[in-house]
């Protein structure tokens, strides 16, 4: 265990290139946590106390969430103080390294594909096997496109990803729905 004032390594570690966690990133996160904790505490305090049902004040529904909100504020204040002592507000404070351009691009593509599948394609009339096949084929095609283009195999890559997508869509539907009788979206 490391106590808050026995963590000098964090600043040094943060100075190494590419660190995702720095005192400044912790400081900003702590502010977010404090805001969250205060919101939870206020929401719990304002929650119905069910006095019309003769519920005593120590059994109201908002009791535990209120204390949880306070606990979040307490811990995040400690984190804020620690980050401040470690130089989060210093002029030469290290910024947390974000994703590289290539990583960010892949992340955004994957996130959009997954959200499109989960929110738009699933549960809105399209058979699950077809939605699944479209998602898997599209994801594989998009992610493997740079390598396939470099190898001059774009058409082959797309064809292969369609085959994999159809197999995945049918396979998952068959196993879950037909063998194990699980209802699919």
């Amino acid at each position, binding site marked *: 265990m490391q106590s808050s004032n026995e963590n000098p390594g964090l600043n040094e570690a943060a100075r190494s290139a590419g660190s995702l966690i720095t005192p400044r990133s912790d400081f900003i996160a702590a502010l977010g946590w404090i805001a969250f904790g205060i919101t939870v505490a206020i929401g719990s305090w304002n929650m119905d106390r069910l006095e019309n049902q003769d519920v005593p004040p120590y059994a109201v529904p908002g009791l535990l969430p209120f204390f949880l909100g306070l606990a979040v504020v307490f811990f995040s204040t400690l984190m804020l103080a620690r980050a401040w002592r470690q130089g989060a507000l210093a002029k030469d404070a290290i910024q947390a390294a974000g994703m590289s351009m290539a990583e960010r691009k892949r992340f955004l593509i994957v996130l959009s*594909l997954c959200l499109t599948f989960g929110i738009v394609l699933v549960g809105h009339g399209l058979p699950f096997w077809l939605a699944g096949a479209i998602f898997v084929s599209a994801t594989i095609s998009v992610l493997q496109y740079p390598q396939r283009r470099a190898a001059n195999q774009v058409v082959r890559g797309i064809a292969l990803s369609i085959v994999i997508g159809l197999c995945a869509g049918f396979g998952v539907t068959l196993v879950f729905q037909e063998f194990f009788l699980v209802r699919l979206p």
Partner: protein
Amino acid sequence: MLDGLVSLGHAYLALLLSPTSLVLGLAGALTGILVGCMPGLSATLCIALLTTLTVKLPANEAILILVCSYVGTLYGGSRSAILLNIPGTAANAASCADGHALALRGEAGRAIGIATSGAFCGTFFGVVCLAAFTPTLAKVALSFGAQEFFWLALFGVTLSGTLVGNDPLKGWLMGALGLFVAQIGEEGIYAYDRFTFGLPAFSGGIALIPALIGAFGFAEVLTRLADPVERKLLEMRDSIRPRFGEVARYWRTVLRSGAIGVLTGLMPGVGEDSGAWMSYAAAKATTKEPDLFGKGSIDGLMAAETGDMSSIPGHMIPMLALGVPGSAPSAVLMAAIIIHGIQPGPMLMVEHPHFAYDMVAMTTLATVCILIFGLYLVRPLLYVLRIKHSVLMPIIFLMSVVGSYATAWRLFDVYAMLAVGVGAFFLRRKGYQMAPFVLGLVLGNLLDKSLRRGLVLTDGSMVPFFTRPICIAFASVTIFTMLLYVPVFNRAVHRVADAVISPLKSLVARRG
């Protein structure tokens, strides 16, 4: 005692005389090993997906598959640790250093053989402890009241936040977040909707399985697919036969690591990786060859594998006896057991007196299964490691969507899984661990009900929460651990410790 042995005998006979059970056990273990082989796919995700797949099966058959897949996943995780230097599951991280070093020396087969024998011995040791301690602990837990359960839940979340990861403050924040998320929806005493913003979909709350699939499945899919680098697999040319000769040679390590694994397993929410790391550290501290650690030490690899596998039955002990899971995978296992109509906790031995022994028999079968697959299926299973992430992860996401939807048939669960996954992806990058969040999510209801019931029983008095014997122990450890992170308190504790220890040291030095 005699009743227990008879029940255990019945459980073993029922399992061994049922060909269906044997086939399902083997299938579960094989699925687990395949999932464990693939870096990033955790035991939690495997059990969560299999829970939805097996939801229509009879309770014992479904739970058998889940137990075998749990053991199989952690065992399978050593493959990628040894051959890719990427742990298949978090619990196999301690095996990376020595296992991969052996593989680099051309002894990958030997490393896998040692991992197999360590895993077999560790799980078997844990099974013996599971059979011996679960009924006893359940009897003790019968004396627990609301106050004890309140502290037990809080102690579990705090301990998990303290021990998992490098930053307890972040661990506790995640624990508090998990506890908060568990409060969303209709609460259990007055059926009042909390934090639902008037939306009916929120009334059912954030279900555990979709949340876990999001935290461990979707977040992993995003992490792996955002990274364009594919790791190179090392070749394996030597024999993969399990090395029981080396077990005999390192018997002290096996016994010590087995005991450490079970003990860490008993701690709520700590996870299998702690069992592995603590066993590894203990082996390093006691070995005659500490310089070899990290460079291909047999002792180190044996300790890590035995420690992580023996913690599996260790985690099942508090899960069954107290209803408090020891790790994220055991939390899902507990949820699955509840889905199948069996409530783990102090009343388990009263309501389902044979179930704990059934679990012992199931875990024994899982142990035998991993030995069989360790002997005969190592090389074919390694083809799984050659599948590209860009092919595997979209299929995993497809199953994650099905898994989230299938338990309650609500599209809201799919959206919850997506939201938790995106949140977990960013939080993990900033050093926040998911295990305390999971434990908070599991124990949130218990904490809420215990607090309010305890207060109602005492007419609003907090005194019994701090004066009942078991409460005193849990409360002091929990509060002291948290206060250690308050700088003023920490300095005061250090001053007191110095004031007590310095005179003792000088006294010892003078006598010496």
